[in-house]
């Protein structure tokens, strides 16, 4: 009993950080209707900036109080910049675009922090007292209690602000209906900016105080968004009190879970506790929150009609695919070995990106779990082979089936909810899979990775180590690349045709308006599940191909931040267009574009961080200036021109003169 209480108290610190992030999430939602995926990154930014000005990283070191003040001023400035770059331009955009913009901010800030401060975690100087109090004879840092107290006071203060001040009233009004608020003379821009500054300063403050308790790491802090989102969901993105309370409870439960993992009854493997139970619990918590609260999530009545990216027709497919396919085939034979490898990886990544085209471009849902599903397929392939001796072709088929079913189950858990909340579930699922499956010594590859045999059919080696070599005579063999090319082209045509078929039309109907689609007789849930199944299938195929490509499966390749980068790059190029998937695929980690950059432009060891930086920046620029995506914009322009010239021809045909202007 005593240890239980003790560990419960030790969870207050991380609970307080989660609460700080959850308060930021609620403020963003109420201020501008954005599900702010970058709220966790706010803690990171504040923590690092404070560390830097406190320890003299920038050449001057301040005392604690001035350092806090300077950091908070910086956070206010940061909030203004984020607002002007990623929120205000998207005032009238779709919720999907707003969500993606916050993802861009997350990618960009994390990349910047990694580039400036490096990847290894830092020890932040403690701000609160380092005294300890004795609980049941065990020393507990007082700072835990103080931090929890501060967060509670913060939540109460925000609740009071919303209840009693003009600003709070205005925010509550505007978050119900922007058009009514505008008629009441309330400026949505001012309200949004005010809440943004408030959120960043409050979350940043918690981040400063907590940095010395939870540690300063650019890889873990941004992901605290997941428990914070769970808490915010329970609070229906509205109540500061509930968000704070649930966050503290999550912190306490995680600490207790940690304590329990040392108990004899806790499930173990090879003598150590099963990893990732905490992340699975967070995922389940989010699923529960969505089922319980999902249907009553407040919807905002926004001022301007939302528009989703255009979906251009996919015409003259064969003419467009053939040259690229031939070029790839030639490249797979003649290029030097590292480029052959990169082309193969690009083809595989293309298949993965096609899954984003289906789920985001056609169905209009943001899902980030695909890379994790690819990992599941890869590990399943490896283990089917190692444990049961099931090889090609049954092995990959089973592996794809396993990962696809898992994907459908995850998607089904978000079915009840309208809107873009699928991202919350899939984000939590991705982390849970990463920690629970990949990090598991039996199911995943552990630290070293799991090996995969090359595929052979009728004694013929189809893998990267086949005897047929490239022109320079070295590995990898082009054989697997050519196999990947065939699979990629087939799936590309499948996804392009999906858009033209009946299911594609139903998907687009669901995307543009779920209620209207339902009224028109479309079974919205069935369409979503089908979309999710197709996307999961594509991701699983890519996972199996990745495994054969590298002949090993390692958890590092399937990290959640890589997944976000991939989603973002597909979105930048044009999420409604299969060509976007191809280009994004060739820009994915290990593919051609990073290889070119790494060979000639960027420092080799940080190429993935730079890619993340480029993609995050590109995303924010694209959302601002070219909201449909780069390729989509040019495709629609071409389409319009073609239509105009067709119309002109038709007019001349009937003897009329074409009129200028359209």
């Amino acid at each position, binding site marked *: 009993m005593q240890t239980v209480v003790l560990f419960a108290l030790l969870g207050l610190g991380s609970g307080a950080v989660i609460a700080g992030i959850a308060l930021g999430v609620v403020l963003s939602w109420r201020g501008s209707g954005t599900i702010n995926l970058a709220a966790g990154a706010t803690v990171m930014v504040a923590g690092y900036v404070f560390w830097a000005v406190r320890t003299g990283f920038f050449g001057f070191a301040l005392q604690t109080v001035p350092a806090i003040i300077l950091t908070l001023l910086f956070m206010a400035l940061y909030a203004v910049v984020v607002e002007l770059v990623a929120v205000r331009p998207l005032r009238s955009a779709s919720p999907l675009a707003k969500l993606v913009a916050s993802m861009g901010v997350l990618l960009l800030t994390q990349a910047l922090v990694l580039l400036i401060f490096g990847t290894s975690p830092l020890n932040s100087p403690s701000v609160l007292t380092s005294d300890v109090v004795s609980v049941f004879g065990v020393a507990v840092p007082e700072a835990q209690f103080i931090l929890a107290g501060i967060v509670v006071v913060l939540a109460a203060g925000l609740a009071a602000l919303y209840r009693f001040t*003009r600003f709070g*009233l*205005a925010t*509550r*009004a505007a978050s*119900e*209906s922007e*058009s*009514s*608020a*505008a*008629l*009441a*003379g*309330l*400026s*949505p821009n001012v309200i949004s900016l005010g809440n943004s500054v408030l959120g960043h300063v409050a979350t940043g403050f918690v981040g400063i105080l907590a940095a010395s308790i939870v540690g300063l790491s650019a890889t873990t802090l941004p992901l605290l968004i997941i428990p914070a989102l769970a808490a915010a969901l329970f609070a229906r993105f509205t109540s500061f009190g509930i968000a704070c309370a649930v966050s503290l409870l999550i912190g306490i439960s995680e600490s207790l879970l940690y304590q329990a993992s040392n108990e004899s009854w806790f499930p173990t493997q090879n003598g150590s506790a099963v990893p990732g139970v905490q992340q699975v619990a967070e995922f389940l918590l989010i699923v529960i929150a969505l089922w319980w609260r999902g249907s009553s999530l407040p919807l905002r009545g926004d*001022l301007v009609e939302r528009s989703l990216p255009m979906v251009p027709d996919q015409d003259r497919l064969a003419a467009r695919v053939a040259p690229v396919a031939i070029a790839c085939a030639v490249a797979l034979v003649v290029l030097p070995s590292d480029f052959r490898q990169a082309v193969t990886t690009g083809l595989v990544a293309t298949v993965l990106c096609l899954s984003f085209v289906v789920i985001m471009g056609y169905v209009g849902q943001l899902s980030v779990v695909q890379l994790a599903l690819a990992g599941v397929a890869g590990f399943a392939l490896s283990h089917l082979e190692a444990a049961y001796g099931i090889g090609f072709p049954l092995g990959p088929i089973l592996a794809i089936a396993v990962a696809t079913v898992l994907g459908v189950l995850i998607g089904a858990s978000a079915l009840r909810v309208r809107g873009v909340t699928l991202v919350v579930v899939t984000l939590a699922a991705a982390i849970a899979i990463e920690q629970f499956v990949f990090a598991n010594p039996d199911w995943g590859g552990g630290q070293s990775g799991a090996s995969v045999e090359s595929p052979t059919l009728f004694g013929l080696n189809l893998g990267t180590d086949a005897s047929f070599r490239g022109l320079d005579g070295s590995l990898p063999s082009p054989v697997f690349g050519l196999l990947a090319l065939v699979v990629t082209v087939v799936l590309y045509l499948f996804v392009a045709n999906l858009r033209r078929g009946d299911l594609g039309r139903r998907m687009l109907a669901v995307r543009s308006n779920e209620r209207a689609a339902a009224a028109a007789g479309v079974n919205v849930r069935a369409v979503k599940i089908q979309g999710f199944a197709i996307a999961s299938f594509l991701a699983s195929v890519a996972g199996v191909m990745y495994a054969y490509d590298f002949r090993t499966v390692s958890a590092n390749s399937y990290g959640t931040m890589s997944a976000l980068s991939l989603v973002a790059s597909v979105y930048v190029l044009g999420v409604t267009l299969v060509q976007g998937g191809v280009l994004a695929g060739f820009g994915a980690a290990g593919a051609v574009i990073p290889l070119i950059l790494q060979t000639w432009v960027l420092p080799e060891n940080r190429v993935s961080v730079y890619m993340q930086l480029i993609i995050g920046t590109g995303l924010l620029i694209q959302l601002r200036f070219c909201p449909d995506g780069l390729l989509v914009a040019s495709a629609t322009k071409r389409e319009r021109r073609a239509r105009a010239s067709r119309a002109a021809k038709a007019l001349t045909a009937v003897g009329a003169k074409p009129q200028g202007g359209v």
Partner: protein
Amino acid sequence: MTEPVLRIEGLTAGYGSVDVVRDVHLEVGKGEVVALLGPNGAGKTTTLRALSGLVKASAGSISMDGQDLTGLTPAARACRAIAHVPEDRGLFRGLTVAEHLRLGPRGERLDAQLAYRYFPALPHIADRRAGVLSGGEQQMLAVGRALARRPSLLVLDELSLGLAPVIVEQLLPVIRAYADESGCAVLLVEQHVHLALEISDRAYLMAHGAGSDSHDAAALRRDRSVIQASYLGGQEWTPTADREKERDGEMQ
């Protein structure tokens, strides 16, 4: 002649690329109550939304006290002392009555007492949330809030929507009284043509997105055939118009 409070000239507006209102002219003077009448879908709401900036005008000009409003955001127009009660009443379900009467743009203090004076039922429900009020109470709150802002132009879109005629008969005279006392200009869209004309000075008729010249309300009251001929265009009466005809018959 003195400058009117509101002057709309050649207004063309619509949704997307479709114009649903074309070349509408309209003026409202100080202390004047002007009705905008027309069948469903005529474009009355769109005209009012364009006036408030919720819909973009593609041509024409809208000016208040001689100052052009083009380019101003809806919020900025509201701050120019325009109080617009939209068709959906523009209330916030989660805010209480008292909070509604505190909610104004920066630098503007609402006169809650004024609202309470015109609508004596409001103080008793001051702590209730707007979402749980009855339709009549909500409409009182919406109008009370608009009056409490002491606007120089009051724009009302179908106050009667979803309300019993008895309540409408109570609400409309309040508007007239307010215009007389404060000098506020009132632009009123109303399906209960007969009730609207009773409190109006002048009226414009709208059909299929086109407006009419100004008509004297008293003349329209006397000769209903103008309305029938010009905006119902010989079509059947709407149900409300029907009821009014019956009631007119009873009164005669």
